[in-house]
């Protein structure tokens, strides 16, 4: 309850500008932590027979995850320029027949 009261007067700490830096620091900390095992771990190669060794190289999953996701976000953004329409785009259609029926009935 006390949190409720404080949120009325003040923003939740997640939304406060001064905490943003801390949040980014925490994120980088977690990312570095996730990379630590790379120093003493050897990844399993799935495609030895096909001559593909990329997936066994160090930090593969990290950069692959980041780059493919970045590519998908940018790709979606670019496609968005072609594909995006106002969200009432189809509503005009749906309304048309009704509007006409009403006119006719008058």
């Amino acid at each position, binding site marked *: 309850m006390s949190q*409720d009261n404080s949120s009325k007067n003040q923003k939740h700490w997640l*939304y406060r500008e001064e905490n943003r830096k801390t949040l980014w620091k925490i994120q980088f900390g977690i990312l570095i932590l996730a990379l630590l095992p790379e120093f003493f771990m050897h990844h399993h190669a799935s495609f030895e027979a096909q001559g593909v060794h990329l*997936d066994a190289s160090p930090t593969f*999953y990290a950069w692959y995850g980041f780059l493919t*996701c970045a590519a998908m*976000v940018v790709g979606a953004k670019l*496609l968005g320029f072609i594909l995006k329409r106002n969200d009432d785009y189809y509503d005009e259609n749906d309304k048309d027949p009704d509007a006409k029926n009403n006119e006719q009935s008058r």
Partner: protein
Amino acid sequence: MSSLILPPGLILILGGLLLPWVAPRFKNVIAIGFPLLTLIMVWLVTAEHSMTLNFLEYQLDILHLTSAGRVFATVFAMMAGIGALYALKHARTLELSAAFVYAGSAIGVTFCGDLISLFVFWEIMAIGSTLVIWANCHQNKRAYGASIRYLLVHLLGGVILMIGIAAHVANTGSIEFTAMKADSFGTILILIGFLVNAGAPPFSAWIADAYPEASPSGTVFLSAFTTKTAVFALLMGFPGETILIYVGMYMVFYGIIYALLENDMRRILAYSIVNQVGFMVVAIGIGSELALNGATAHAFAHIIYKGLLLMSAGSVLLMTGKRKCTDLGGLFQSMPVTAINGIIGALAISAVPLTSGFVTKSLETSAAAEAGMPWVWFCLVAASAGVFLHAGIKFPWFVFFQKDSGLRPPDPPWNMRAAMWIMSFLCILIGIVPSIIYGILPYALDYQPYTADHVVTQLQLLLFAGFAFFALLTFMKRTLTISLDFDWFYRKLMFGGISWVKEHSPKFVGPVILSIKYFGQKHLDRLKHVHGPQGILARTWPSASMVLWVAVLLAAAMILHYMQL
């Protein structure tokens, strides 16, 4: 004992048909009891049981147990029950009743031994699911149009499937539902019919068009059955069909891209269904035992966590009346239960270790590795990261965190919270004790998901995908938009074309239509003249003329008689 065994799907259908007629106080009992009975029956059926019906010269088998079918039937019955718990307070009886018939016929499909009864259940599903969307017409004016478009797509798919089955039966003489190869006219059409229901291109848009227009509980029901029944049908009918790898891969990335562009929270999750079903379709295309196990296990886990995510989104919709990310945000402060459960669902769909997604989806990527298909594997790994991006972070971030929208709705009523907790529990239980699901899969499975290598690499993949999300957050600023899809052709182009023709060119088209009308009218008039109520052949004649003609006939007969002498 065997006399007590009924097809489990029929029990649920019966429950659905019973619901509207019982007193309100028994409604809860039926809503929870019938799915439970169905679930028990699914596990009482053994391979020896069968129930055959005669239809024309064919024998239909509606009680045909397969191990994959049992997995699907189990999760369908569970979803019907937990979904009913979620729906208990707010859903209309029509919705719940239709949902049970819909779920029952989905279970019916999983127990079909032949193509004809499969088709019958397939069509009942289409009707049941349409009614589930329809039941929301009073709340959402878009629901009616969406339900009709949904029905049209499914009737089209049904017609294609029917033609395929007829051609296949004419070709082979067998109605048995078994593994086929898409190498004849009939089997290709059957494959297309299945794929329409799976949300394959070009008919992927119906999922995001129709599902989010249903009520909060309606969308939960819808997300579970149609696409996963199609996965089951593909799994049984077309394992190892190479084209499915490409079709599935398209679905995987289609789902991610469209979900990234989307603003409506439940449409994000609807696109994510296409993405997840894409994984399963790819696995069916690979077709090895590991891959088919993977598709089955993933379907099981997916139904639960997608149901959970939609329950969470549905609770937000119910409590705020808002569905767009641009209007939402900051809800974790006043809806902690909904937020926690939504996050558990999001972690499960992203395949974070200790969740059901981790132990099931990895079977599919491992199957690609085992089958020696590097490009499939690299695409699936990228897509796994993409799942985290569009469903794992995007949904909870924009709904529960993001900016503070100022909305402070409370958590939903107890039944909805209970349903979400049960689903979350299942997501984590399967993640911690994967043998629950591994033990009931179609093929024996020797797979260890929790190796240090697997856990570490998965965490790295997901964490850096998450980093990409926050680093590129400005690119993902929500806009009040929808994205064009193939449904543009039938919603805009065809509709617009017809109205354009109607309005703008009466001078060209008018005469053509008039002459067609004239041609038809002429033939109708002629028919009416001969066969109509006062037509030559149908008009009533005075009895006097009958007497006269009888007399003439008798006279003629008499004359002939004498002439013979």
